[in-house]
């Protein structure tokens, strides 16, 4: 058995890089940027390598297990890289690269520890994707959140302070719920390792089942706060609108972390093999998800600022995801994973684009004035003095149209493929009589209506911005800001063109998730590394 040290690299690399960057002063910002960028590129390569290993048969059953400090599971902490985790790591690295590139000329130079916080955020997110232990998950969530508190405040002004006061309070309270849930699960089952939980849950004593369900429900509340399920998601639009664009793009991913953990935990714990606890909570997820879609769609209609609109579209996408998870049908989960990737890319690109669009109306210097004053930064960041990309307006409007098409789910971009495949899965139920129940119809109706509402509100914003603005001054864009947005949109186009191989991969990932026994077989026997000199 070879040692999969690669599995822990996505956690160690940003940790070390973030720590190294702390002592450098802001005067060395080019060096800091270069190190940070190199680390993100390293993450990208690692994620690709993990994906190849998970899918290429390098590991038995496509599951790579890393036992921290060589403690056998379930006593130590196990990190698990399977197809889904590798894919999420890749998505993280891609978004991080885009955000960081976007921040090159401007946002990374205001404030002192942008790069360190950014790296710690990546560490937390990657850790949350990889870990297979509930308490360790809590630790990575806290790392991720602590970094995000700092990043939301980045570019310190009154609006950001107000937003982050609420954001931090909500998330601190959610962290406490997380702890309560974890403690209850430990009390009722005696383990915190997820694979071990999946094994024990089928044989749990009847008097403990109630306690376990309460524990998982409280735990789920903590994740649902992150993924902004109605009524737990009121903090989200305000925070997204207030945060600086590169940070907001990373926040989009953080809502998906909540949905990812719910998906993994629910399929592992409450699948068909779970005995008396099977099927717990699915209805709550599906109806809560649908309520979230309604809330997000109503919010999109009612707001006229682009930042809040992007926030509400993130709410809609996470509602759709939760409903898809709660519907409990493997083929639908495959489509939902495709939707997850596509919608993350779309909303992130939109959030980055908003700042560029805002330049049509506001002189770019005005926004910086306050933050510069507050931080007493002496080294004035370069104005993005770009050469004025030719036809900047054309770029902005085309990119905006692409974002709108993706968020609303119209052809030809990936949003359409995602919604089409979700409907296809809903209309072809795998089990039972082959008829579709009321929940399925309601879900389809809501997805269609939310797409319609998205296109209405995006068109309204687009018309006001690009057609009706009288005082349009052609904005000055820097190539480093145009490139990430373009790259994210092109990636979405590639997802459409390469939908077939991607769906095959996601299908295999979804099959992994629906077979909890497979994890138990890989994680629990504990492929402990033999001591040097000892035969394996």
């Amino acid at each position: 058995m070879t040692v999969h040290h690669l599995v822990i690299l996505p956690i160690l690399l940003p940790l070390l890089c973030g720590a190294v960057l702390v002592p450098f002063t802001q005067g060395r910002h080019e060096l800091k940027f270069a190190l940070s960028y190199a680390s993100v590129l390293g993450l990208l390569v690692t994620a690709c390598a993990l994906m190849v290993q998970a899918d290429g048969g390098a590991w038995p059953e496509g599951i790579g297990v890393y036992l921290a400090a060589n403690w056998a599971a379930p006593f130590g902490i196990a990190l698990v890289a399977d197809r889904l985790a590798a894919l999420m790591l890749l998505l993280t690295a891609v978004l991080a690269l885009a955000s960081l590139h976007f921040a090159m000329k401007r946002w990374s130079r205001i404030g002192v520890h942008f790069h360190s916080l950014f790296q710690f955020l990546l560490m937390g997110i990657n850790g949350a994707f990889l870990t297979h232990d509930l308490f360790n998950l809590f630790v990575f969530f806290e790392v991720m959140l602590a970094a995000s508190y700092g990043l939301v405040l980045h570019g310190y002004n009154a609006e950001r302070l107000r937003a982050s006061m609420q954001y931090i309070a909500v998330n601190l309270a959610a962290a406490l719920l997380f702890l309560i849930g974890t403690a209850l699960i430990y009390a009722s089952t005696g383990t915190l390792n997820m694979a071990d939980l999946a094994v024990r849950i089928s044989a749990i004593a009847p008097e403990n089942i109630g306690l376990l369900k309460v524990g998982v429900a409280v735990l789920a509340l903590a994740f649902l706060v992150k993924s902004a399920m109605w009524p737990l998601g009121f903090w989200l639009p305000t925070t997204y609108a207030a945060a600086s664009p590169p940070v907001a793009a990373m926040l989009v991913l953080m809502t998906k972390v909540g949905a990812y953990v719910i998906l993994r935990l629910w399929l592992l714990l409450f699948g068909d093999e779970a005995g008396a606890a099977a099927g717990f909570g699915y209805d709550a997820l599906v109806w809560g998800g649908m309520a979230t879609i309604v809330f997000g769609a109503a919010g999109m209609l009612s707001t006229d600022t682009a930042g809040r609109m992007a926030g509400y579209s993130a709410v809609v996408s996470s509602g759709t995801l939760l409903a898809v998870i709660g519907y409990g049908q493997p083929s639908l989960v495959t489509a939902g994973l495709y939707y997850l990737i596509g919608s993350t890319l779309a909303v992130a690109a939109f959030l980055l684009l908003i700042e560029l669009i805002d330049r049509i109306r506001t002189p770019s210097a005005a926004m910086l004035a306050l933050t510069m004053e507050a931080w007493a930064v002496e080294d004035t960041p370069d104005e993005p003095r770009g050469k004025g990309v030719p036809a900047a307006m054309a770029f902005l409007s085309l990119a905006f149209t692409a974002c709108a098409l993706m968020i609303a789910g119209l052809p030809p971009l990936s949003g359409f493929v995602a919604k089409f495949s979700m409907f296809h899965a809903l209309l072809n139920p795998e089990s039972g009589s082959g008829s579709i129940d009321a929940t399925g119809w309601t879900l389809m109706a809501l997805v269609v209506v939310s797409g319609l509402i998205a296109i209405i509100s995006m068109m309204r914003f687009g018309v006001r911005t690009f057609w009706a603005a009288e005082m349009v001054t052609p904005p000055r864009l820097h190539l480093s800001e145009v490139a990430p947005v373009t790259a994210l949109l092109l990636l979405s186009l590639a997802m459409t063109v390469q939908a077939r191989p991607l769906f095959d991969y996601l299908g295999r990932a979804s099959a992994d998730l629906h077979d909890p026994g497979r994890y138990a077989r890989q994680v629990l026997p504990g492929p402990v590394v033999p001591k040097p000199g000892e035969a394996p």
Partner: protein
Amino acid sequence: MELALSLAIGIIFGAGIWLLLRPRSFQVLTGLMLMSYAVNLFIFVMGRVWLDQPPLTPAGSTPDPRVLADPLPQALVLTAIVIGFATTALYLVVMIGARGLTGTDHVDGEEPEL
């Protein structure tokens, strides 16, 4: 014993929730701290209530898990205390910043109109 512990945890947590919903940031912070104390106690108790049975074994002897307190919740609670302490301190810094920038300690950043 169990009743006293549960009541204590419940009362602290309840007081914390009440304070969390108050409008002044200091009250919110105090509420969060009370809640985290209650949660720490809760985790501790989730390893069952043991009296005079520390999870320590003299050197050379074989531990008997039936007569020892469960060490895992104790380890968890240590981690939880450290993390809770750090995040609360961070929140305190944000509060002070908000007080300085907005001139009020109201959580909305502005005084409500009377």
